[in-house]
């Protein structure tokens, strides 16, 4: 079902609600469609305020006894049967003719967006084998717990060496004991150890921005700059890129991969045409370059309907062989330049942000993979032929917005390990997991450093010791902050034992008389 939507004033909407059923004349040309039974009216362009049941959409021929949107230039008559006030977000709809709904929507034909299907996954725990489950159950009975990985190995050993009954109980007990020994001691400074463990191999990394051509002609930041970028939680990485995997059906097909890569590459009008401005006669001439169009896999017929969507100025479009002429109805020097500027960056094809896409065959996995320069995760995941589950980007902030904090945490670990690994360094993953945990603790990805975690410490003295001392102390004085001296830095300042290791234990020895 398609829905007619337009922008109106609140006054008119109220009038319509009062007088419905009635005819209403719009100042747009609407192609009548049989399935058009509903209309939505927006005032702000962000939410719809009214929903109407409509019965007829016809060109306006001067009928009387109808309400009018404007006084003149009326074009279409819509019969409104019923109208009521609603609250519906504009984001739930998509434009039928393709593209996105203009923010300053004048009128559009819409369809309700299909709601994403939610599938519940089978819990990971239920997928474990019965042997492992029985080990875990036995542990639970004793009020103990071990990681699943160790339980798996225990179950395996039980089977392989046929350990039963009491012997297995003994084994369990010994395992638990050993497991406890390997844990981090209470009050151990895991953060400091982590920082050193990442920092030391970091000194061996290349300092300068090192662009590594992993895929032919692709620029990807690696090495220390990339590591810094990850922990700084930059809004956009310096070289955003995506790895797009194809769906099961399409992954062996080169043509489909190439077609997909071409369709996402964002192409502006300037990429395929020369644009000329004529200020005296107030028109813009677009000269399409055939050669470039073929390279980009673009047809002339595709460009024209998109051009018609520029609704900001009243223009007449005339077309010839390879030329498109847009002339203003009312000549204006300012407006013609505005139009020219708009056309220069006008996107005729592809997804926002994706500059280039390259198709490559993976010998190991025997499948076609698309690598891109620039990233648009939300856009790509919606496309057909794309494997939703595996497609990824190196833009961590984007991941947190599209897939949530937990996925962002996973991405931080993944990206930092692979960066270190690429430089031939091996850092225990636990340190990187700690970094990722801290960065995503608050529910959003935060940087490590002054603007992130370190700047939000509870203690005034610790913050003052870090950076901008006077500002912190002054503010604390103004609002009367209290420092409980729980951390490390503040205890060093006042000359007390720090709250780490043995210093954290409040134990004293009193010799008996």
């Amino acid at each position, binding site marked *: 079902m398609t829905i007619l939507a337009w922008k109106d004033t609140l006054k008119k909407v109220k009038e319509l609600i009062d007088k419905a059923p009635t005819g209403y004349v719009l100042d747009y040309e609407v192609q009548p469609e049989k399935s058009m039974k509903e209309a939505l009216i927006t005032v702000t362009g962000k939410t719809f305020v009214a929903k109407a049941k409509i019965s007829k959409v016809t060109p306006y021929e001067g009928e009387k006894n109808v309400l009018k949107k404007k006084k003149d230039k009326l074009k279409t008559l819509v019969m409104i049967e019923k109208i009521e006030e609603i609250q519906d977000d504009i984001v739930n709809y998509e434009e039928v003719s393709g593209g996105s709904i203009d923010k300053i929507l004048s009128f559009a034909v819409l369809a309700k967006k299909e709601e*994403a299907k*939610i*599938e*519940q*996954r089978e*819990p*990971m*725990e239920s997928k*474990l084998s019965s042997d492992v489950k029985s080990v875990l159950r036995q542990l639970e009975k004793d009020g103990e717990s071990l*990681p*699943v*990985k*160790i*339980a*798996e190995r225990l179950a395996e050993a039980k089977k392989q060496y046929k350990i039963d009954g009491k012997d297995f109980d003994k084994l369990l007990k010994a395992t638990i004991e050993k497991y406890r020994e390997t844990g981090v001691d209470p009050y151990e400074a895991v953060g400091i150890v982590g920082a050193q463990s990442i920092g030391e191999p970091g000194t061996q990394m290349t300092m300068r921005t090192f662009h590594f051509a992993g895929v032919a002609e692709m620029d990807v930041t690696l090495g220390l700059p990339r590591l810094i970028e990850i922990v700084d939680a930059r809004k956009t990485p310096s070289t955003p890129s995506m790895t797009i995997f194809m769906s099961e059906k399409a992954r062996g097909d080169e043509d489909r991969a190439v077609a997909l890569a071409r369709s996402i590459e964002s192409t502006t009008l300037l990429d395929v045409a020369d644009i000329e401005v004529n200020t005296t006669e107030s028109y813009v001439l677009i000269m399409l370059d055939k050669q470039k169009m073929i390279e980009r896999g673009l047809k002339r017929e595709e460009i024209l309907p998109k051009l018609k969507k520029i609704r900001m100025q009243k223009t007449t479009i005339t077309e010839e062989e390879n030329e498109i002429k847009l002339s203003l109805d009312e000549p204006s020097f300012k407006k013609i330049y505005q139009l020219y500027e708009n056309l220069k960056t006008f996107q005729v094809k592809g997804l926002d942000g994706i500059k280039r896409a390259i198709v490559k065959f993976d010998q190991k996995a025997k499948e076609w993979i698309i690598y891109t320069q620039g990233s648009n995760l939300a856009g790509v*995941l919606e496309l057909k032929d794309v494997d*939703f*589950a*595996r*497609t*990824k980007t190196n833009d961590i902030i984007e*991941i947190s*917005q*599209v*897939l*949530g*904090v*937990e*996925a962002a945490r*996973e*991405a931080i670990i*993944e990206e930092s390990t692979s960066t270190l690994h690429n430089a031939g360094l091996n850092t225990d*993953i*636990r340190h990187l*997991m700690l970094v990722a*945990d801290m960065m*995503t*603790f*608050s*529910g*959003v990805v935060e940087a490590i450093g002054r603007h992130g975690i370190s700047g939000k410490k509870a203690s005034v003295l610790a913050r003052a010791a870090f950076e901008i001392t006077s500002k912190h102390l002054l503010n604390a004085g103004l609002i009367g902050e209290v420092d409980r001296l729980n951390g490390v830095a503040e205890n060093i300042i006042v000359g007390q034992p720090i709250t780490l290791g043995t210093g954290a234990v409040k134990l004293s020895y009193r010799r008996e008389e």
Partner: protein
Amino acid sequence: MHEMVPEHWLVSVKEEEKILKSLGVTKGQLPKIRKSDPVVKALEKVEGEISPGRIIEIVRKSRTRGIAKIYRTVIGE
């Protein structure tokens, strides 16, 4: 589901106390997850409105433990 997104389960109010006790923490000390987080939004379609203060159990595929369960408190925004 995307392979980078682990399992998210809403913890029933009854079980909340048991979990907090076993971890020895308060709700405020747990890591947070925003109500506007895409996964929470999806979970809301299954479980209905999730108000801030509820606890979400996250079952991750862990590189060190095999399976790891962690908890996050839902916060507003």
